[in-house]
């Protein structure tokens, strides 16, 4: 079963607006990561937030983590058409194996209209 579930499944906004995506997960985590996937391409790592962090910024990205609610959000400010992509959260449970593999959420398809 999916460790992470994302909300909404699809989001359509105008260029310049902010986009917020949410991720919920079920078990205690080592850290939580967000990835972007352009159509027909591989995933690209965006940002990592550790379990003892509450907020992290990287450029136009802001990630929050609430371990008590087992949820995270990704905010993209001042969106651009080039931000159109699928966004996935990925978690690594504390009890994962020797290579600490990630489990990906179901993803949010973001469309930014010019």
């Amino acid at each position: 079963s999916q460790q992470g579930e994302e909300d909404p499944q699809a989001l359509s906004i105008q260029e310049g607006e902010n986009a917020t995506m949410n991720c919920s997960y079920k078990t205690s985590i080592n850290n939580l990561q967000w990835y972007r996937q352009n159509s027909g391409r591989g995933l690209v790592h965006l940002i990592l937030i550790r379990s003892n962090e509450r907020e992290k910024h990287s450029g136009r990205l802001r990630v929050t983590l609430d371990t008590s609610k087992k949820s995270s959000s990704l905010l993209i400010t001042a969106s651009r058409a080039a931000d159109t992509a699928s966004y996935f959260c990925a978690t690594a449970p504390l009890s994962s194996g020797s290579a600490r593999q990630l489990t990906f959420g179901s993803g949010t398809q973001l469309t930014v209209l010019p």
Partner: protein
Amino acid sequence: DAMVIQNPRYQVTQFGKPVTLSCSQTLNHNVMYWYQQKSSQAPKLLFHYYDKDFNNEADTPDNFQSRRPNTSFCFLDIRSPGLGDAAMYLCATSMRGGRGFVQPQHFGDGTRLSIL
């Protein structure tokens, strides 16, 4: 630039005809992963190698095998592809993190497999 390269980008095979997908990396990462991703779904981990140590996911069909002859290369073999195996196959790499820390993964652009 250090990267993960998958070949070919598109692969067409016939129902039941064995096919091999390849992945190479110049990152010198000790972990390599294979994921299956179907349309509009999350990537699903099939298996991974930590160095030469192979780790199979419990629900990965026996039809799927993997080889890692050296640090740089990893192969996905599908012995008898069925129509349900049509998907994007993604290779990823990472370094094993210390003290349980999970490092980010670096992905190739995938191979899209079609079954006729």
